[in-house]
């Protein structure tokens, strides 16, 4: 019998609660979150458990950070890129965020993080456009223009990955600030 299972993520910027609920449902059936995987999660077979999951974004997570969660009853399950952290706890454990101000802080950090990535891609695209124009004026070899074209298409596709989450966080923050 297979010991691990892969499930897709809806994208934590778009479907955080849905993802976490799904993980909780799987835990009831004995499939426990093991680690982040490409665009999803890897689960491993274990004892069926009643668990709630929470996600936090913290780039500077240190020992003190994990200790606070542990003391509050939240077990660290896995992290991705030293920034995304998932914790689990038995039902009834108090939520990891207790006020709106710090929830806003969290989404601001995430927005800033994906915003930086989106900006770097945009900067590269500007250069590619420039090369492209220079090559069509004959200031650069034609091959440069062709390569820039291909790279432009690739970077447009890549821009979606930080770009859409950026917009999602922006919408989320707008909603939170109106409460």
């Amino acid at each position: 019998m297979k010991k691990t299972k892969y499930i897709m993520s809806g994208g934590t910027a778009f479907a955080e609660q849905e993802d976490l609920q799904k993980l909780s449902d799987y835990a009831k059936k004995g499939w426990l979150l093991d680690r982040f995987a490409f665009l999803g999660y890897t689960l491993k077979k274990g004892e069926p458990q009643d668990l709630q999951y929470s996600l936090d974004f913290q780039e500077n997570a240190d020992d003190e950070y994990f200790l606070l969660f542990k003391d509050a009853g939240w077990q660290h399950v896995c992290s991705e890129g030293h920034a995304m952290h998932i914790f689990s706890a038995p039902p009834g454990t108090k939520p990891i965020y207790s006020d709106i101000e710090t929830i806003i802080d969290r989404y601001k950090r995430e927005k800033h993080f994906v915003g930086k990535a989106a900006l770097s891609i945009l900067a590269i695209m500007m250069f590619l456009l420039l090369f492209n124009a220079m090559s069509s004026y004959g200031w650069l070899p034609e091959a440069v223009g062709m390569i820039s074209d291909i790279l432009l298409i690739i970077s447009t596709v890549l821009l979606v990955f930080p770009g859409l989450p950026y917009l999602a966080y922006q919408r989320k923050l707008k909603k939170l600030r109106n409460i």
Partner: protein
Amino acid sequence: MPRNDSLETGELTDTSYYILVSLIEAKHGYLIMKTIEDMTNQQFSIGPASMYTTIKKLLAAELIMLFSESKDKKKTYVATEKGIQFLKKEIQRRKEMIKHAEDALGGL
């Protein structure tokens, strides 16, 4: 106005307020949470993510400071003089807010 920038305007969020109150005497993170729960009869409790974020903010604003770091990596904090002044101003502000409401209600 984004309400989470309230430290800059001289106001304390409820979370910052209670953390400062409990740090009149030095404590580590989890003990701060416990102290606040006991102080408020479990009416107010702070989650670990909110606690961590707010501690970092209070440190950056120099309202609290690192007091010591023990071998088990637990960091202890204590309110600074600036933090205590801030807290006193906040108490005054909140007292006035209550008075405004009580006056408006006229002893109802």
